[in-house]
C-alpha cells in the first residue's frame, strides 16, 4: 500500500504553503509547537520506563506462554497474537502506556511484521476511551455519564475486530 506514501509530504507542503499565504511566522510558530512536543515527549518518559520494564519482566519470565495457554480458546477463536489483544485493552485506558507497548512490539517483532502492522492499526483506529470520558466529563463536573461508557466499549471492540480483519486481508 505505497499509495499512501505521498500523503505525508503532501500534507506538510499544504500546511506550509497555507501558512505562507496567511502570513504565519512559520518558523517561530513551528518552534513553539516543537517545544510543546518536546515537553510531551519528556512527560512520556516515566510511562515508557514503567511499561518497558513491566512488559520486559512479563515476557522474559515466560508468563506470556502461561497466559497464552490460559487464553488459548479466545486467541484460537480470533486468530490473534496475545500481545495485541493485551494492547487493545491497554489502548482504552492509557494513551502513553499503549504507545509504549506499541513501540515495544516494534522493537521485538519489527514494525513491518504482522504484529507490528496490527499494533499500528489498533493504535490508530481508536482512542483512549476511558481516559477521555473521565477527563472530559470531569472537566465540567458531570458525574452521571449515562450510556457513554457502554457505547465506548462497543466501539472499541468493533475497532479491534475490524483491525484484525483488515490487517489479515491487506497484508496476507
Amino acid at each position: 500500500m505505497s499509495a499512501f506514501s505521498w500523503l505525508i509530504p503532501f500534507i506538510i507542503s499544504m500546511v506550509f504553503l497555507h501558512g505562507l499565504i496567511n502570513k504565519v511566522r512559520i518558523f517561530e510558530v513551528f518552534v513553539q509547537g516543537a517545544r510543546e512536543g518536546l515537553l510531551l515527549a519528556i512527560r512520556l518518559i516515566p510511562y515508557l520506563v514503567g511499561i518497558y520494564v513491566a512488559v520486559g519482566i512479563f515476557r522474559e519470565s515466560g508468563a506470556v506462554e502461561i497466559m497464552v495457554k490460559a487464553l488459548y480458546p479466545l486467541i484460537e477463536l480470533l486468530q490473534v497474537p496475545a500481545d495485541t489483544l493485551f494492547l487493545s485493552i491497554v489502548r482504552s485506558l492509557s494513551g502513553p502506556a499503549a504507545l509504549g507497548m506499541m513501540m515495544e512490539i516494534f522493537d521485538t517483532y519489527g514494525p513491518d511484521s504482522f504484529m507490528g502492522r496490527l499494533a499500528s492499526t489498533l493504535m490508530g483506529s481508536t482512542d483512549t476511551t476511558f481516559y477521555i470520558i473521565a477527563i472530559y466529563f470531569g472537566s465540567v463536573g458531570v458525574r452521571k455519564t449515562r450510556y457513554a461508557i457502554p457505547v465506548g466499549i462497543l466501539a472499541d471492540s468493533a475497532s479491534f475486530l475490524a483491525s484484525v480483519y483488515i490487517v489479515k486481508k491487506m497484508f496476507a
Partner: protein
Amino acid sequence: MNWIFSFLILGGIFAAAWNGRLEVITPAALNAASSAIERAINLMGVISLWLGIAKVAEASGLIDQMSKFIAPVFTLLFPSIPRGHPALGSILMNLSANMLGFGNAATPFGLKAMKELQKLNPHPDTATEAMCTFLAINTSGVTLVPATIIALRAAAGSKNPSEVVGAILFASICSTLVAIVADYIFRIIYSKS
C-alpha cells in the same frame, strides 16, 4: 492501569519463579529501563516535528477551514444543539484535529466544547445527549492521518511507515459507525426510560 501494571510485574515475577528462572528478572528489568530511555530520545525528535507542523496548521487557520467544510454533517449528528451555537464550532475543531492526527491540538478544543455543551445542560451533574454523541465519536477516533503512528513506525525503522494508513482508516470508520449507531440506539432507550 494500576491493575494491569501490577499484574504484568507480579505475574512476571511469579511466572519466573514457577519456571525456575528467577535470575532473568533483574537483567530484564534493567535492560528494559534503558531501552525505554533510548526510545524516548528517538521520540523527542519526531513528536516535536509533528507538533511543530500541527502548530503551523493551527496558526494559519487551516484547521479552522477544515472544520467549516465538514460543518453540515455535524449539524445532522447533534440535533439538540441550536444552529450557530459556539459548542458546534469547538466540536468541529476538536474532531477535525483528531482526524488529522493532532491529538494534542484536539484536547483544548474538546474541553472547550464540553464547557459550551454544559451551558445547554439543564441537569449539570448528568451527561446530555449531545455530550454522549460527541464523546462516542471522539473516542472511536476517525483518523485520516495517523501522524504519531507513522512517525513512530519510521522511528522504529519501518520500510514503509505509512502503509497502515488504509487499514487504520477502515478500522476507525468501522468503530465510528458502531459508535454512532450504538449512541443512537442507547439515546432512544434512555429517552423512553
